[in-house]
């Protein structure tokens, strides 16, 4: 037995501290009963909030926040804490932001990743830290090629979506198709996917052109389209380049010659408003349109429009679904949340009833889902992508 005063005080202090610790753990443990609940889950929102892709990054964050606001800021019964990081305009800013939120702030899962370049840089950091990331915008196919348990995506991989754009081109392809994209690996892979799909259906490609990123004057490329006498054009451009392309397509009178099918990012908000009436009649193929009629979308599209003043685009929807996925995954976790627990739980998530329809993860952790052909029309006093054909579920 301890005899001295100091010794007894030391012993008493130690006992008190130990008792408090046990009580604390006990409290945490005993309060969580039933499905999930209790431990706070820290979500890292890593997206471009500055630079040319800032408008998309904003939509990604909005989508997730919107889901939270509809579910009492809880996912799977766990209260949510958000930690935001700015991907910036280049991989090095993204890497710095990723390190901060993963290492310093210790998030349990990362959601976002706007551009492919930054996603490629960041996914190694998060995978090495054994923190799962759910990609809601970056589309390059190679991001999910390993099927890693730490990499998940709620957005369609580029080559699949690009290949499906051909579905909107088939009815106008008698004079041949002209494909144009912004000069980059992403652009080229997309163009190749469209070409493969068209040629598999017996349609000809009569010309291609790759314009450097940042092109503002498309006259030379439009002249090439004219010279090729193509009857349908597929275009894939990013940001303001896409806006300039569509405006000049109309200014130079191309619609008289060829129907324009654009990659879905070009006709989504906010670029759609920027392009204005020049976008009317342009078709695109993707996995969502605000006008889809199902129970989940009834709770999403209109309320989102009321909240943010514009219809949700694919990035908002993909993020909304990321939250839904986490909602289900977290409901299987009791008590404290750990990054590994989330990564494992994501593997057990089943089909999601989403505003886009029902979908689930395939073995590469990309969505296995249905697609729609849409055309830009004026509806309800504004420009909207209206579904003209439901392509149904597409295997991938």
């Amino acid at each position, binding site marked *: 037995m301890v005899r001295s005063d100091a010794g007894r005080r030391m012993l008493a202090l130690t006992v008190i501290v130990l008792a408090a610790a046990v009580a604390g753990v006990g409290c945490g443990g005993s309060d969580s009963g039933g499905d999930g609940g209790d431990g706070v889950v820290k979500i890292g929102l890593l997206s471009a909030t*500055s*630079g*040319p892709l*800032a*408008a998309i990054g904003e939509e990604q964050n909005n989508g997730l926040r919107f889901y939270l606001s509809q579910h009492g800021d809880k996912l799977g019964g766990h209260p949510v804490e958000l930690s935001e990081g700015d991907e910036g*305009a280049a991989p090095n800013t993204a890497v710095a932001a990723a390190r901060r939120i993963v290492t310093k702030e210790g998030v349990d899962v990362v959601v976002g990743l706007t551009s492919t370049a930054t996603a490629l840089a960041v996914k190694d950091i998060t995978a090495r830290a054994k923190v799962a990331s759910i990609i809601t915008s970056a589309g390059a196919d190679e991001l999910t090629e390993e099927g890693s348990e730490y990499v998940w995506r709620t957005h369609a991989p580029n080559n699949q979506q690009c290949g499906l754009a051909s579905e909107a081109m088939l009815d106008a392809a008698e004079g041949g198709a002209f494909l144009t994209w912004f*000069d980059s690996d992403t652009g080229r892979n997309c163009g190749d996917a469209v070409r493969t799909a068209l040629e598999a259906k017996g349609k000809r490609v009569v010309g291609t*052109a*790759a*314009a*450097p*990123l*940042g092109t*503002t*004057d498309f*006259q*030379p*490329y439009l*002249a*090439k389209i*004219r*010279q090729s006498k193509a009857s349908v054009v597929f275009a894939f451009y990013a*940001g*303001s380049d896409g*806006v*300039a392309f569509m*405006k*000049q397509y109309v*200014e*130079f*009178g191309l619609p008289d010659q060829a129907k324009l099918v654009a990659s879905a990012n070009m006709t989504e908000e*906010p*670029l759609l408003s*920027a*392009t*204005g009436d020049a976008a009317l009649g342009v078709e695109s193929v993707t996995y969502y349109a605000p006008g889809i009629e199902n129970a989940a979308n009834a709770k999403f599209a209109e309320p989102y429009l009321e909240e943010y003043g514009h219809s949700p685009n694919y990035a908002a929807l993909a993020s909304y679904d990321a939250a839904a996925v986490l909602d289900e995954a977290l409901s299987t976790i009791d008590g404290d949340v750990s990054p590994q627990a989330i990564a494992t739980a994501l593997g057990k998530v089943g089909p999601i009833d989403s505003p886009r329809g029902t979908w689930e993860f395939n073995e590469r952790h990309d969505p296995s889902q249905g697609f729609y052909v849409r055309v830009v029309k004026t509806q309800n006093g504004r420009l909207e992508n209206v579904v003209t054909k439901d392509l149904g579920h597409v295997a991938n």
Partner: protein
Amino acid sequence: MTHVAIAIGGGQIDAVMVLNGLAIGLLLFVVASGLSVVFGMMDVLNLAHGTLFVLGAYIAVTFSAPDGSAWFLLAVGVALVGGSACGAALAVAVRPLVPRGHLVAGLGTFGIAIVIGELMQSIWGDGVRTVDAPELLQGSTSILGERYPIYRLFLIVAGVAFAVIVYLVFNRGRLGALVRAATYDREMLDALGVRTALVTTGVFGIGAALVTVGGVIGAPLFPAAPGLDLQILVLALVVVTIGGLGSLSGAFVGALLIGQVQSIGATLVPDLASMLLVGTMAVVLVARPQGLFATGGERQR
């Protein structure tokens, strides 16, 4: 309808492409002339030049109206006044840095550019803002068998008018004499009793006003978005490097050359399209390192 074209290499060059190159080239001349003259006179490379162009674009966005054309004149007027004010302020801010050399002065303008850029983003947001041509200049017309936007024809007319005015002012007017003298030998001009500080501030202001107006008239072609300032700055820098820093005729020839290179080059050598700009600059610099029309009288500092 006659269709004029020549088949070269992998594609066809038609007359409309050349015309288009002229339109872009003349717009570039309006934009780059200020940069060239300011460097020649003050030895300051104004890296805020592109930012002023974007300011002009946002002015156009603010005043733009779906019908009518009056907003266009208003926007140009505001750009003239606003641009001159910014230019004069830049000149005053940068003058103390000039004795410390190109790098410091240039960095000073770059810092100011970043600040103005952030201010613009907080006012106009980070999305893409587009502007339609004023009603009078909307639509397209048939030129040599092809449809061509009327607005670009206006750019050609405006650009030619500008070039003529600049030529007259520079070579026949007193202001032109003052500027040429200040470029050639500023100390001598000082010694003659001319307040060179006023001349340089004034010309800085005019150059800035021009590039801001360039942003207004270029707005229907160049959607305003973050990153546009850097794009325009690079274009202007390439033009003045090719033409020779300080030379207006150089800026004119350089601008027209770049206009054609971008227009025809994309067709002639599509695989090299991303390198056309820098490639042209490299070719010119190898042949004439100081640019095509370098200003004589290199001052020893």
